[in-house]
């Protein structure tokens, strides 16, 4: 029996006539890397916002670490780290100062925050740039600083929204490797949204496929391959194309 840390039940979010997320049921287990996969505008970001209590669901319920983010957003945010897409920092401050500010917002004592920040900067390979203003950081460095920022509060769960967009291949490899180490060493649960199939395939234990606000498929790559391609060891790309083709067919009918 696996521990469920994120559970979504019939989660729906409508904007006027448009339904961004439709009757979503999903559970993420403790200590796994879960990939949310789907084209742009499939409702991945909206789902993430609802998990953090940054927007309210129109109907349905989310449970994150056993808490309802619509009712108890503060406690959820204390336990969940969120790295938004294209994260920003206070550009007139250094990387270290940005991390320390996050520490203060989380009520971490100053000494402890200093130690954590230095430790994390080392982990993400930014020790040398710690005292440089973040305006001088490259895209890849910002993304890594973002990961360090998320880890400042020592979360149980981290949610990353398109964390790899715009990073070069080398930076990407480092970033994905970092995620794997984090999971192994700290037992973190990681939810990772992306539209890059290969990246998701590389690091995720299970994936959920989003198309037009609905979860089309969910499971490990092995399971998905058997379910959709009727053979083991299919590539994620094949599964994805198969599901999209299936979607098109049902739309025609």
């Amino acid at each position, binding site marked *: 029996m696996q521990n469920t840390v994120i559970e979504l039940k019939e989660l729906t979010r409508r904007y006027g006539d448009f339904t961004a997320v439709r009757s979503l049921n999903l559970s993420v287990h403790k200590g796994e890397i879960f990939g949310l996969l789907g084209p742009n505008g499939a409702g991945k*970001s909206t789902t993430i*916002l609802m998990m*953090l209590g*940054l*927007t309210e669901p129109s109907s349905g319920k989310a449970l994150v670490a056993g808490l309802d983010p619509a009712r108890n957003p*503060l*406690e959820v*945010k*204390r336990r*969940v*780290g*969120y790295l*938004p*897409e*294209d*994260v*920003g*920092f*206070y*550009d*007139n401050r250094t990387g270290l100062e940005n991390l320390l*500010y*996050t520490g*203060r*917002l*989380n*009520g971490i004592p100053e000494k402890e925050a200093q130690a954590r920040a230095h430790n994390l900067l080392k982990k993400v390979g930014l020790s040398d740039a710690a005292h440089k203003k973040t305006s001088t950081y490259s895209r890849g460095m910002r993304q890594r600083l*973002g990961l360090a*920022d998320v880890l400042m*509060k020592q979360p149980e769960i981290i949610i990353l*929204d398109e964390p790899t967009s715009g990073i070069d291949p080398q930076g990407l490899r480092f970033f994905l490797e970092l995620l794997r180490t984090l999971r192994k060493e700290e037992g973190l649960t990681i939810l990772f949204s992306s539209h890059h199939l290969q990246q998701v395939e590389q690091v995720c234990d299970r994936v959920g496929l989003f198309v037009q606000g609905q979860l089309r498929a969910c499971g490990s790559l092995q399971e998905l391959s058997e379910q959709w391609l009727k053979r083991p060891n299919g590539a994620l790309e094949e599964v994805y194309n198969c599901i999209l083709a299936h979607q098109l067919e049902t739309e025609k009918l």
Partner: protein
Amino acid sequence: MNTIKIPLPSSRPALGAGPFGAMIQKEMADHLRSWRFLLLLGLLVLTCLGSMYAALSSFSSLPPSELAKMEFFFLKLFSISDGSLPSYAIFIGFLGPLLGIALGFDAINSEHNNGTLSRLLSQPIYRDYVLHAKFLAALAISAILLFSLTIVVSGWGLLALGIPPGADEVLRILMFTLLTIAYISLWINLAILFSIVFRQTSASALGSLSVWLFFSVFFNMLIDVVAKHLAPKQFLSEAQAVAFQNFVLNLLRFNPIHLFNEATNIVLMPSVRSTGALTMEQISGTLPGALPVGQSLLMIGPQLTGLFASTIVLFALGYFLFMRREVRSR
């Protein structure tokens, strides 16, 4: 071994402590480090020097016999001028809105455009902390600035005149400073509201500046036109004329700038006993003289209430819009 259980805080922590204190500190530091602040400081210092010079030179141009008759000598430092430059009170009334707008116009939208707002809101803080911290930091900065200016003007005046202010003059100067801070907080809230409504910082700056321009130039013109149309062809009695005059004055009072000017006049000029028109009947039998501080304070009650009410309305509007908004990354 005994384990010590640390109780979790059950309610919101005190506003000055913890994350909220850190946010205010950061906002204030941001203001102090910015070029914008240095520019404003320079402008205010120039104002202060210019109006002091004008006030002192008007003192020295008066004949000694006039000077001897003058009451509230020290207060005049703030309200008198030789005509070459506006007085300190007029200058501050003019620059106050600019200061408030400059401190608030990019409060929320710059956070959003830099992508820091969604990162900030994913931390365990209440959403209204962001708004409160922005407002309080701007308020604290303007309060510090104005108090220092007041002290500089008073100190310089003391040196130049050699006459110490009386107790009620000190009280009136204090009241004037507090009044100005309240007035600036109105403009801070207006600017913050625009920074929530508009995504572009330039749009919100222009928006707040045009509101300021509207009230400082066009509003009074508009009322003038309206008054001319509404005025009866001929007044039947004196009471009617006074009533009409007061009606027009009340229309003017929808303008926060007018409210502030009225209140300033009452506070800085103890001889002002009414803001509206009076009939001969009402005036007859009064002896010209200065009002005590308490009476002046009573007189500006309505003006203060009006200023505070509009500040609260602006703040509440911004609060409503901000709390309901879905914050996405940039």
